[in-house]
């Protein structure tokens, strides 16, 4: 009375992603995307849409290519030597990997929050206004302060730091730092925010706060989040994508993935049946 057979847990050569990978009004689309590190292929033929204002979570075992996938979306992979992306990735119909595209602009539109909170060793104010300043988003000091407050408020940090905006951002607690990084990211009004395991360096309490924040942000932003915690994915996301050995196995509404996954591999991962 086992699952069909042991082999059933392995991938077929030609696989097709199970579930609802596509949507009607996509913010970003990926078609036949392969990613290579030098010779090593890290992502195989991924096809997926990310809808406007949805939170999509990427889960999967370690090394399955979640981070790689995420970083192709704002070309942070460019900084990795030997990384090559094939296939088509578009945002609002515009090809992200076309030579004409300026990555600086792209990254302003697709913000990113990293695993370890990485505030600049500057004041809280400078951290948040860094983006607006370099992009020339504010003409006056007043504009800048406005952006500052708005971003911090959105990141749920305003109340906690409003009295010490000129103290260094590195003096905040881990969770606050991460929210500062989020504030910094949203200060340039991106359209999409990518988060790579944003809570894995945080304790449960800070994690819970960030999760709250993600829920709130999802009203204004499209969010793609990588997480190693299935429960986190279950909590914060609308759709969940399961990666396995670089392949996108299943994409489905989160509730379904966690109660009734379609693919056996997803089921095996969700229920802890690997090894």
């Amino acid at each position, binding site marked *: 009375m086992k699952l069909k057979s042991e082999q059933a847990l392995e991938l077929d050569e030609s696989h097709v992603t199970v579930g609802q990978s596509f949507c009607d009004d996509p913010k970003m689309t990926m078609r036949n995307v392969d990613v290579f590190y030098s010779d090593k292929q890290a992502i195989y033929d991924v096809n997926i849409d990310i809808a406007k204002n949805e939170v999509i979570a990427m889960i999967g075992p370690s090394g399955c290519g979640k981070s790689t996938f995420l970083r192709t979306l704002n070309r942070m992979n460019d900084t990795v030597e030997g990384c090559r992306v094939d296939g088509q990735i578009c945002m609002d119909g515009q090809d992200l990997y076309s030579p004409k595209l300026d990555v600086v602009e792209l990254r302003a539109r697709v913000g990113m929050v990293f695993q370890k909170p990485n505030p600049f060793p500057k004041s809280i104010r400078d951290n948040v206004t860094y983006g607006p300043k370099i992009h020339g988003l504010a003409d006056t000091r007043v504009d800048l302060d406005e952006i500052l407050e708005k971003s911090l408020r959105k990141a749920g940090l305003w109340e906690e730091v409003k009295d010490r905006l000129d103290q260094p951002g590195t003096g905040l607690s881990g969770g606050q730092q991460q929210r500062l990084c989020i504030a910094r990211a949203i200060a340039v009004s991106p359209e999409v925010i990518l988060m790579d395991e944003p809570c894995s360096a945080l304790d449960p309490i800070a994690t*819970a*706060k960030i999760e*709250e924040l993600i829920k709130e942000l999802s009203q204004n932003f499209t969010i793609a989040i990588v997480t190693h915690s299935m*429960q986190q994915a*279950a*909590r914060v996301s609308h759709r969940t994508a399961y990666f396995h050995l670089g392949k996108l196995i299943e994409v489905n509404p989160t509730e379904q993935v*966690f*109660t009734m996954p379609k693919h056996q591999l997803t089921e095996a991962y969700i229920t802890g049946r690997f090894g």
Partner: protein
Amino acid sequence: MAKMSFENHITKQFDEELEEIRTRLMEMGGKVEEQLQNAILAISDANSQLAEQVILADQSIDAMEVDIDEACILIIARRQPAASDLRLVMMVTKAVNDLERIGDEARKIANHAIILSEENESSVGYPEVRHIATSVTNLLAHALDAFARFDSDAAIRTIEEDQQVDLDYKTALREVATYMMEDPRSISRAINILWVLRSLERIGDHAKNLCEQIVFVVKGKDIRHC
């Protein structure tokens, strides 16, 4: 700690979700209570229309059960509740079952109300039904009340009430049996009354189950079958 709250989670979302299933359960309770009252009214007023209505409305209760159950499963999958939260969720998934059963019994009562209303106007068994119906309605009301306030003391009092209902039920049964023997023509009607009484008794039992669950949530003690 006879009362408790399910707020103040770090994740407000979690608070909301727990609150949500609670409210939905309360809502379902309200609905079920209404069904019960209507069914009883349908019998005492021989109002077959009302009875039809009750029968129809039962579907929405069934749907509520499925919905709340699903919500509970999602909470478990998402939040990994522990301790009181976990007890609450488990309680809710059991309580919906009881409520649904109460709804079913109400529908059955309504069914019998239709049959009874079609029959002659005899009032055999009505007093008994009325008496027990009042007790059971109170019982349910108290149970739901205890749940709303997570008041385990109230729940325990309600459980004791149910014993009285059981006694009354037995008396009523005996009386209806007497009617039957006294007047064989009323047998068919009396049987219907019997079923109604039985349904009321079951509703009392389910209300009692609810109360046991409440005690379980609040005290962490499983007092079923004690």
